[in-house]
């Protein structure tokens, strides 16, 4: 099939511009030519349609051989039909109209197109109905391992109870540790003499220096390590409790002064 064939085609006054890219394929283009000119699909003027078809496919992208081939194949079919129409009619009733096969394909394609348009509107209707799970789940909590809830009020009260550190003056000075952990061990065990638990803040009462807090905490950790007591906090930033370990061996608690401390 040679496209130059189209050069000689008689272009009638009903010449019209059709953009080839708009069409999904040769059948789409043929249907367009027929439907826009109100042609009776069962009596297609093959010569005229063939000319128009060839005119339009001159705009084909030569690089795109695949789709060009499809259009050319249909062009060949059209030209064959045109030739068959020109042959003298035998007058035999069994002869089929050479256009019949093409007409059947066109009608079938047109029907499929109609169905696909209905399916498009069914698709749009369906897209307006939603099932469970459409709205996304809330993002997962970052600290799922934390067993207890913290509210913003808790965070705020914890923040407010933090003392502003004293402004630092001059170079930091390293001083010898003046508070011994031994003293704190004694303090903790004393406090636990007549009760099962004591608050960390109560142990700090009367001591101003932050270092007292640090040493008391370290003493608590040490005693915990030795299974003399255990520490509990119900939630982050809340009060820390020191509890006597009732299962501890008697000798340890009585022997308060002699607990060995690694320093």
């Amino acid at each position, binding site marked *: 099939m040679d496209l130059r064939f189209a050069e000689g085609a008689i272009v009638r006054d009903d010449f019209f511009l059709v953009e080839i890219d708009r069409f999904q394929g040769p059948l789409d283009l043929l249907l367009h030519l027929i439907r826009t000119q109100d042609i009776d699909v069962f009596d297609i003027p093959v010569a005229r349609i063939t000319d128009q078809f060839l005119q339009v496919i001159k705009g084909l992208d030569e690089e795109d051989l695949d789709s060009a081939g499809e259009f050319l194949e249909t062009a060949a079919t059209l030209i064959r039909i045109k030739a068959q129409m020109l042959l003298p009619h035998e007058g035999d009733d069994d002869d089929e109209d050479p256009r019949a096969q093409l007409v059947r394909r066109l009608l079938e394609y047109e*029907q499929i197109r109609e169905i696909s348009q209905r399916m498009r509107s069914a698709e749009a209707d369906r897209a307006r109905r939603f099932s469970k799970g459409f709205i996304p789940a809330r993002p997962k909590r970052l600290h799922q391992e934390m067993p207890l809830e913290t509210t913003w009020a808790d965070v705020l009260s914890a923040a407010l109870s933090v003392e502003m550190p004293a402004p630092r003056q001059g170079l930091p000075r390293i001083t010898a540790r003046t508070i011994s952990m031994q003293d704190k061990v004694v303090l903790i065990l004393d406090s636990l003499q007549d009760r099962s638990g004591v608050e960390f803040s109560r142990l700090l009462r009367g001591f101003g220096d932050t270092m007292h807090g640090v040493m008391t905490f370290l003493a608590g950790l040490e005693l915990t390590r030795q299974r003399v007591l255990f520490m509990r906090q119900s939630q982050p930033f809340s009060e820390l409790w020191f509890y006597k370990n009732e299962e501890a061996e008697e000798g340890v608690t009585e022997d308060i002064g002699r607990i060995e401390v690694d320093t």
Partner: protein
Amino acid sequence: MNTPQIVEAVLFASDAPLSPDEIARADERLDEDQVEEALQILKAEYDDAHRAFHLTEIAEGYQILTRPEFAPYLERFDNVHRPNRLSGPSLETLAIIAYRQPIGRIEIEYIRGVNSSGVIRTLQDRSLIDIVGRGDGLGRPLLYGTTQRFQEHFGFGSLDDLPRPDELPIILKDRMPLQESERSSDQEEISEKQGLGERPADEDADNHVNEASQDSGA
């Protein structure tokens, strides 16, 4: 607990359509008929109470879906993946497969007049169609059919919900899924009216398909 409540609980907990026999698994004493009955009760209840959702028959099962008039409110939450609308070629190809299944690629391409292997692959990737068998022709071609996902996508209760050929402006019933009797009478009508020759269309169409497959094989 009565049956409609049990059925409701199962439907509520599911995010996909369930068929009556699937729902019946909820209790040994339930059978499909009881489930069907319960489904009708629930359907009427939701409609009477003007719930924002209704019981929808979809993909050969039932699913609780919101009513379309609430779409504008729900679409504001639209930040999860939603299936895209299908392209023109995809819809065309799906329509052919839906009506002609099982059908092979060659026949699809004959009807559309264009190469369709890419579209078929896309539809397969989206689970809208699947291979349902092999044809008898040369090389035993793969045959395609639509899936349950296809019915879900378009909201069809079953394949009967596809637009009927007789609703359409142009009627070509030779291979549409229709009754035998309906088929032959309408076919004659077309041939007579159009004077396109006496040959039966069924035989004719088959010949063309064979031609088409020979062409592509060459």
